[in-house]
């Protein structure tokens, strides 16, 4: 009951991953489809095994995201886990970002009245965030997103920025061209929400001009020289209010810099000529449809840590299960006249002759992780109440063998089926071979020792048949 309930919560059942739309240090961002809700979402996948961040801190960050709800930010929906990854599900902005807008439509900068609208919306998002003492840390055109309706939302904040800033002091958060001087300065012990205002100033410059200041220079040099150099200024055929807005944001000392609340009152953003960017979004979609938007993710979703293969190391807790030996005598009598050697096995007509070359490539251990066998013991967790009664005291030969590292499933069953697979003439036979092997793997994962008991029974049977024939 609960199990199936849990299963239905598996991310891959709930969401269909469409394509990778972004790559970050902390995880790849995918466009995905929420099957139940029938809508598109953005999924940020954070590989927890690779990440050095403390899970508790990451979780705290997610809890904080969960407490933010505003029409001006891309809202948090939920978090799920799959394999060793966290899937953070957020609203998806189908209209792309302002960076896309510049790339496809306004190569030399977005018209001022549109920039004013975008900026006013970003400020509303910042006012909401800053009121809760939350810092975005990475304001730039690429993180200002557009919905299908042409509304503006602030995206990609939270998890990465917050954590990195709290954990690793001295590491930079943000993107060099947009960074505030106090973020770059190491002697500065920290920074506050005013850093976002600096980045906003750079972003407005970027939106108007098509690129941030000094974008032709090396980003690291720009960053290092930032505290020394005087603030960039907006020149050219722009309105006074736009130029003033940028210079008000780009005050080097954060204490003297205006707050988001104050900037929202600036006359650059107080009289707006438009109320959405619907037309641009429509146009952008047509433009973008032509080039594929897919990127290759940093960590492939296919690459799972728990791929169903057996652990590399097994301990010696158990001896062979005390098997209730069936009454071999009677079993043998009833089938005795089968004369096992006389008729060829039904498979053999489909198979190569046993002139089989043992190639080095076929070591069962390496093959156990091939993709077709991936799902085997997905649920093979250690059972506290083990289904198999393990007799710990009686030592046996089988145990000695296992001490040598013999795994009945891997070294015998898997090995034999591998050979059968290779001997098979046609694909259909191979499918059957794989099918039976799959069932073996499943049984082994559910009942540890299954293969061992099976082999034991086969060996016993062959022995008794041999004995019978020898008579």
């Amino acid at each position, binding site marked *: 009951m609960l199990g199936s309930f849990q299963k239905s919560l598996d991310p891959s059942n709930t969401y269909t991953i469409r394509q990778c739309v972004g790559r970050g240090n902390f995880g790849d961002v995918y466009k995905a489809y929420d099957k139940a809700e029938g809508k598109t979402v953005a999924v940020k996948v954070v590989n*927890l095994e690779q990440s050095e961040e403390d*899970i508790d801190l990451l979780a705290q960050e997610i809890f904080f995201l969960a407490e933010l709800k505003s029409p001006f930010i891309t809202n948090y929906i939920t978090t799920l886990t799959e394999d060793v990854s966290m899937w953070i599900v957020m609203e998806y902005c189908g209209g792309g970002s302002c960076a896309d807008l510049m790339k496809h439509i306004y190569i030399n900068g977005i018209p001022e009245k549109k920039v004013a609208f975008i900026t006013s919306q970003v400020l509303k998002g910042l006012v909401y965030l800053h009121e809760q003492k939350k810092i975005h840390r990475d304001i730039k055109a690429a993180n200002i997103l557009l919905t299908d309706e042409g509304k503006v939302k602030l995206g990609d904040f939270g998890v990465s920025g917050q954590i990195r800033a709290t954990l690793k002091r001295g590491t930079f958060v943000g993107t060099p061209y947009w960074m505030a001087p106090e973020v770059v300065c190491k002697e500065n012990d920290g920074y506050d929400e005013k850093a976002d205002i600096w980045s906003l100033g750079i972003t407005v410059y970027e939106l108007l001009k098509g690129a941030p200041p000094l974008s032709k220079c090396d980003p690291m040099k720009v960053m290092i020289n930032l505290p020394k150099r005087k603030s960039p200024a907006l020149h050219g055929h722009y309105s006074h209010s736009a130029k003033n807005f940028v210079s008000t944001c780009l005050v080097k000392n954060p204490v003297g810099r205006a707050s988001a609340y104050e900037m929202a009152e600036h006359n650059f953003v107080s009289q707006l000529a438009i109320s959405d960017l619907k037309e641009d979004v429509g146009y952008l979609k047509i433009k973008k449809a032509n080039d594929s938007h897919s990127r290759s993710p940093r960590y492939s979703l296919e690459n799972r*840590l728990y791929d169903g293969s057996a652990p590399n190391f097994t301990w010696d*807790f158990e001896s062979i299960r005390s098997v209730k030996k069936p009454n071999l005598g009677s079993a043998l009598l009833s089938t005795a006249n089968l004369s096992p050697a006389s008729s060829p096995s039904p498979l053999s007509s489909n198979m190569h002759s046993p002139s089989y070359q043992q190639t080095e490539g076929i070591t069962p251990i390496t093959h156990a992780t091939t993709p077709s066998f991936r799902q085997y013991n997905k649920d093979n967790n250690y059972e506290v109440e083990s289904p198999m009664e393990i007799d710990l005291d009686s030592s*046996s030969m*089988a145990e000695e063998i296992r001490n*040598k590292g013999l795994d009945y499933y891997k070294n015998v069953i898997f090995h034999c089926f591998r050979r059968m697979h290779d001997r098979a003439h046609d694909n259909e036979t191979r499918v059957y071979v794989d099918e039976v092997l799959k069932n073996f793997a499943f049984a082994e994962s559910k009942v540890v020792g299954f293969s061992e008991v099976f082999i034991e029974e086969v*060996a016993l049977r062959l022995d008794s048949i041999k004995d019978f024939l020898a008579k």
Partner: protein
Amino acid sequence: MFKKYKNQDLDMTFWWKKNPKSPQDYVKFISDQLIKIESSSTQDSKRKAQEEVSKYLMYTKHFILGDTDPRPTAESIDELYCAIYRSELFYDLLIHFGDLEFEARKEVTLIFSICLRYSKDNKLVTVDYLVSKPKTLRMMLKIVESAMQRKAANDLFLTVGNMLMECIKYEQLCRIVLQDPQLWKLFDIVRFGNFETSTESLQILSSALTTHTKLVSKEFFNHENNMNKFIQNINKLMAHGSYVTKRQSTKLLASLIVVRSNNQLMNTYINSLDNLKLIMVLMTDKSKNLQHEAFNVFKVMVANPRKSKPVFDILVKNREKLLKYFETFGLDYQEPTFIDEKEFIVQEIESLPRIVSSNNVDCSANVTASPSRDVAAAQDMA
């Protein structure tokens, strides 16, 4: 003082405009609106009441923070606190928590944590109050559990969870949490909840069990029943939890058994064969991080100078395997303490008696022939 009006909404607005706001009135107004939420027959009037509560919670927050103009006097803030206690405002709010608006619940959490820190004459007034009225905390634990049954109750769970975590920082309040049988329900939520509720529950349990070590060892783990129940529950999490749960619960266990005052827990845990097996299985997990957490428990088991016989036997039996395991374990971790610990553990394992194998089995030759016969032979020999 005031006579009851029929159309309260209208008359109250009028009243607020005319009268200077006194802190007691804020509290009373919120309480009245909560009753209204409960008794309202139409969605409309309910929503209206919800909005009113949100609004006055915000006013209360500004008042208590001294954010108003003119700034409230110290006396009037004291009065506000008194009014909050007298009317059992938090209990009332918690009862109606599911009916509050999203932002209103955050205001409650914020007001609550400000109240917790409030002290007068060197006394934490709110803490004392909550100790005298444990039903408030009980209510929180109840909400946390009921959030499991409600769909989309994450928000509810997270905000109440935050309040609980704030409470746990105070020893007297942590005691109430530890005494409440609801505590055990949290383990179930860790296992069966979604990511948010599961992670938050484990965080609540962690802080309840690790913040006040003396309290926990003297009043919680000293009850054998509690200790056994804890071991049973934490083992379930480590064995059956999600990847995140396994890592975090193993980490919690490791941090608990190394606390000196928890030595009873440690002794019970490290001498059980089942526990050893579980920890050893976790050490072979695919996750390096989990292996590492498990090692932090395993090292205590190995370092134990008075190992129980079953534990000792399994260690001896796996002596060679363990030595092999430690050849490659934790090579990526460079912390000096870890390296020292690992070295010590390897020495301990090396000093275990070696089993001399009675029969040299050549795997490749013998296995396929007839394991059963060899088994029988070995059994005969033994």
